[in-house]
């Protein structure tokens, strides 16, 4: 109670100082405009670095992946043309290794293999076509959680989050918590010396993750920004 008086006075003094408009100083630029210009320059420099790095890969006609962590996009491209684009819902970086901007994927490993439907010998082409038409195989049958194994033991982990619009928020929350916990447990179980040198983990919507797996060629350059 005795402190209320001094506190009130300090508050009133603070309000008085903050309400006064400072006069524009002559000569040097006000600091907020300088900061705006500096931010603009930083954005342009980032864009310039991204374009330079991409041009170096895009000269090869093979498709490549661009993982842009700051704009939260992952794009499958060829010669600068976007073939498929996905939003990154969340990302994490693990490992002590130095980060490179260009990675070469040598293998992709799903956490669970999808089982292909089989054709019985002698069933005939019509039966096979009818089976195929029933969509027993396709992007929605692809694994949603998988690792892109790259050279120098670096890994890009793709993980799926269930964010379809028709599921209710409560089940989405529980699914999210379960998947993240399961992934944390999987990582914890891996022995320290078997862990990747450097790892980028990307969380995508479930169908996006499956469609990405479906679309990937066997070898791929990956540009991380």
């Amino acid at each position, binding site marked *: 109670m005795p402190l209320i008086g001094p506190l009130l006075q300090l508050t009133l003094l603070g309000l008085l100082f903050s309400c006064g408009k400072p006069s524009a100083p002559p000569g040097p630029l006000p600091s907020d*405009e300088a900061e705006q*210009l500096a931010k603009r320059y*930083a954005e342009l420099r980032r864009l310039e670095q991204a374009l330079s790095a991409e041009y170096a890969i895009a000269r090869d006609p093979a498709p490549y992946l661009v993982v842009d*962590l700051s704009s939260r996009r992952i794009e*499958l491209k*060829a010669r600068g043309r976007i073939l498929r684009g996905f939003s990154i819902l969340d990302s994490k970086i693990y490992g002590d290794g130095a980060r490179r901007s260009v990675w070469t994927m040598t293998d992709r490993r799903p956490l669970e293999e999808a089982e292909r439907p089989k054709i019985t*010998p002698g069933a*005939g082409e019509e039966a096979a076509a009818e089976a*195929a*038409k029933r969509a027993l195989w396709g992007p929605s049958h692809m694994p949603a959680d998988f690792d892109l194994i790259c050279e120098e033991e670096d890994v890009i982990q793709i993980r799926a989050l269930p964010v379809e619009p028709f599921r209710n928020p409560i089940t989405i929350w529980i699914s999210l918590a379960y998947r993240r916990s399961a992934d944390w447990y999987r990582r914890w179980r891996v022995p320290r010396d078997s862990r990747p040198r450097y790892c980028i983990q990307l969380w995508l919507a479930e169908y996006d993750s499956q469609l990405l797996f479906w679309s990937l060629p066997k070898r791929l350059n990956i540009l991380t920004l």
Partner: protein
Amino acid sequence: MLGSKVGLKRVTPALADVRVRALLGVLGAAVLVSAVVFFRLVFRRPPAESQVEVVREIAHLDAKVMRKQISLMESRIRRLTEKRDRLLQASPAILVDSAENKIYLLQGSKVVMQDKCSTGSGLELTDRRGNRSWTFETPRGYFSVLGKVSNPVWLRPDWAFIEEGESIPKDRPSRAVADVLGDYAIAFGDGYFIHGTLYTRMLGSSVTHGCIRVDDETLKKLYQTAERGTPIWIY
């Protein structure tokens, strides 16, 4: 009121049970953790440490110098964008979206034709002895037109006989079947072709053995436009 008093008397002994309280505690914790995870997901901001460093590096410079730097940077970006766009040469290219079963013919960056197609079913066939198996998938990646032929004749491979339950012939002429691949076929490597089909009602579905099937009109346009070396991207 009496009902609620009776209800409360029934609930209270239940809450006195340690197991019930423990279960409620676990459920509450799970809801709390889920909420935290969800809101972290929704409100997380991307990292921007390198941008902060650049801002600190140059914020002390004179405004005129900064504006000049920005102008130089913008013209460098314009030149890089033009260089990258020139990679999309004016020559034709073919894109195949195997998830949507669509085929596109491009001239530079412009789509001049698009249509339905059929790509590989993804099914697996194993012969009765289990010695050999085939996966009927259209490969993904970059390819190029290696050759094209009119009035193609299909030389049935071994899997075609196994699929029908027929014995595999020893002579090559017994494998030849005419008029099933349409008027043209465009080869892009490893025995894969873009060709026509008798099963036009199946176009738009993943039903082939790996090749890309299109209708007659699209096939003719592709045959007339594509040359040896025309790029094909399948994704």
